[in-house]
C-alpha cells in the first residue's frame, strides 16, 4: 500500500541544513491502522506531509499503491492525492465560507464527479458522521468535535484507500477525542488504511500498530495486536 525506502528530507536555508527525515523506511499494508508518535520536532508531520504528497522529499523512493511518487509532476500528485488519500487535519481545516455540504463536496468537485453522485456521497458521509441534519450549517456553528467529524466525512467522501490523520484529536476535549477515535476505528474496520500522528499515548495504544519517529528516523517499532486494553498493559 505504502512503501518508503530511505526517504530523506532536508530543509535548506542560507545558513542551516536540517535533516527532517533520515533514511526513513516504512511499509504500510492495506487495512492497517498505524499510530505515529514521537517528540515535537522529531519529523512526524514531515513524514505525514511526504506520505500525503503535500511536500516533496529530497531523496529515496516512495511508492503509493504501486505508483512511484517521486516521478510524478505537480498535477499528477494533485490527482493522486485526490483519488487515494483522505487527509484529516489537527485544526479541521474546514473552509469557513462553505457550509458542511459544500465542504465535503470540495474534493469531489476536484475529481470532476457529477452533481448527482456528489450529492449521494456527501449525504452518505454526513449520515455516517451523524450530521445529516446540519448540512446547511457553517463550520463555525459547530463544536470542535462536530467540525472534526465533518473533516473526516470530507476525507472519506472521495472513498480514498488511505487516510492520513494529523493529530486528529489534538484540538478536542477527551470526550470528543474518544468519539472521533471511535469513528476512525470504525472506518478502519470498514477497510480503510489509516496512519495517524498523535501525541496522545493513550490514543496511540488503541491503534493496532505503533511507530515512533525520533530525529527523523524510525526509532522504535511496537506492534500492538488485538485488544487495545491488552496493549496498554504490554
Amino acid at each position, binding site marked *: 500500500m505504502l512503501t518508503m525506502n530511505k526517504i530523506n528530507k532536508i530543509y535548506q536555508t542560507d545558513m542551516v541544513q536540517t535533516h527532517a527525515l533520515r533514511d526513513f523506511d516504512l511499509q504500510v499494508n492495506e487495512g492497517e491502522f498505524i499510530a505515529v508518535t514521537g517528540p515535537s520536532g522529531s519529523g512526524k508531520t514531515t513524514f505525514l506531509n511526504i506520505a500525503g504528497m503535500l511536500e516533496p522529499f529530497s531523496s529515496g523512493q516512495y511508492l503509493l499503491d504501486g505508483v512511484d511518487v517521486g516521478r510524478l509532476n505537480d*498535477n499528477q500528485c494533485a490527482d493522486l492525492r485526490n483519488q487515494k488519500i483522505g487527509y484529516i487535519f489537527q485544526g479541521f481545516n474546514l473552509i469557513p465560507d462553505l457550509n458542511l455540504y459544500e465542504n465535503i463536496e470540495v474534493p469531489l468537485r476536484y475529481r470532476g464527479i457529477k452533481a448527482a453522485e456528489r450529492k449521494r456521497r456527501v449525504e452518505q458521509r454526513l449520515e455516517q458522521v451523524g450530521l445529516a441534519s446540519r448540512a446547511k450549517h457553517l463550520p463555525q456553528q459547530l463544536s470542535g468535535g462536530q467540525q472534526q467529524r465533518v473533516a473526516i466525512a470530507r476525507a472519506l467522501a472521495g472513498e480514498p484507500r488511505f487516510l492520513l490523520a494529523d493529530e486528529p484529536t489534538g484540538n478536542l476535549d477527551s470526550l470528543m477525542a474518544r468519539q472521533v477515535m471511535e469513528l476512525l476505528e470504525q472506518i478502519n474496520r470498514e477497510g480503510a488504511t489509516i496512519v495517524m500522528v498523535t501525541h496522545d499515548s493513550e490514543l496511540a495504544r488503541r491503534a493496532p500498530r505503533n511507530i515512533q519517529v525520533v530525529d527523523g528516523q524510525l526509532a522504535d517499532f511496537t506492534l500492538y495486536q488485538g485488544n487495545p486494553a491488552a496493549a496498554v498493559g504490554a
Partner: protein
Amino acid sequence: MSELKPIFNALRRSKVGAILLLLQIAITTAIVSNSTFIINEKIAYLDQPTGYSEQDIFSFEVMSFGKDTNFKLQAELDEQALRQIPGVVDAVMIDSVPLSGSGFASTFRLRPTGEKSKGVNASMFQGDEHVLNTFGVKVLEGRNFYQSEIMVTDNYEQYPNIALITKVMADTLFPDGDALGKSIYRGDFPLKIIGITDMMKGPWLSSERKDRSVILPFVMARKLTQFMVRTEPGRRTEVMQQIEPLMLQLDSKRVVENIQGLEQVKDGFVAPDKLTMRMLLVMVVVLTLITALGIFGLTMFNINKRTKQVGTRRALGARKSHIINYFLVESVMICIGGLVLGAVLAVLLGQQLMQHYSIAKLPLLYVGLTALGVLLISVCSVIGPAQRAANISPSVATRTI
C-alpha cells in the same frame, strides 16, 4: 470543473470586501464610459474640418491713434501692400476672424421683418472680393463679388444688397437646392444670393450656427481693424515677421498686435475644451488604475487571508489551475455584478449630463466597451495574485499559521 455555486455562496457569506469592490467597479464603469464618450466627442469637435488651411493663414489687428487718418484710403493701401509681400497668396481686411470665438452674427429670414417666414441665425463676415481667396474657400455655385460691388465706408448709411452664403446655410433655408438668385432678409434689408460657398466655419466652433455663414461686400474702415492673410505653404512665418514693420511704415500712428496663425486663434478658443478633455483623460486613467489596484489588493488580501484554505484545497486534490480558476471566477463574478450596476449607473449619469450640460445621449456602445475593458483589467489584475496563490504549498495545510 464548475465551482460557480460554491464560489457565489462563499461570496454571499463574506460580502463586505466583495461589495466594496463591486461598487468601485460600478462607479468606474459609470464614470469611465461617460468620460470616454465626452472625450471622444471633444476629439471629434477639436478635429472637425474647418474648411481652412489653418497652417497657411494668419490674422492681426491694427489700432490707429492718428487723428487725421483717412481710414477708407488707409484700408485700401494696407490691403494692396499686404498682397504685394512675396509669399502672400491674398489678404483682406475683415470684421470677424473665423474660429476665434469673436465676431458678428444675425438672423436671416426668407421674408422681411413682420412677415412670418423661416429664418436662421448665421455668422457674418464683411469684407471685399478677396475674402474667399484669403480663406481658401471655393464658390460652389454662382460667383464671387466683383470689385465694383464692394462698399467701402466708415458709416452704416449704405448697406449691400447681395451676399454669398455657405452651402449648409443655403440647404437649410432652401431645402430644394434653389437658393442661388433668391433673396434673404436681414431685418428689412434684402440680400440677393449671388454665390454659394464650400464649407467655411464661423467664429464659434461650438455653436449650432458654425456651418452657416453670410459674406457681405462691405468694408467698414475705422480705428480698429483686423486683417487676414493667406501665404503660400511654408512661408507664413517669414510673412508674419514682415507685418509689423510694413504696417508701421505705411502709417506710424498705430499699433499692430495679435499676429497669430489661424490654428493658434482656434487653440485659444478651444482651450477650455482641451482642458476638460485632459482632465477627463486623467480621471479615466486614475480611476482605472485605482480599480485595477483595488482588484489586485483585494485578491492579495484574500489570498493572504486564505493561505491555509488554499493549502487545504491543494491537499484535497486541487491542481494549481483549480486555484487560479477559483480566484479568477470569484473576481469575474464580482466584476460582472459591478458591471451590471455600473451600466445602469452609466446610463443614469449620461441622462443627467444630457439634461444639465447639453451633452449628447450616451451611446450604449461606450458602456459595452468600457465594461469589456474593466473586465479585461479585472482579469489581468487577478492573474498575478492567483498564480501566487496557486504556488502556495499544500503542506501549509498542516502548519499552524
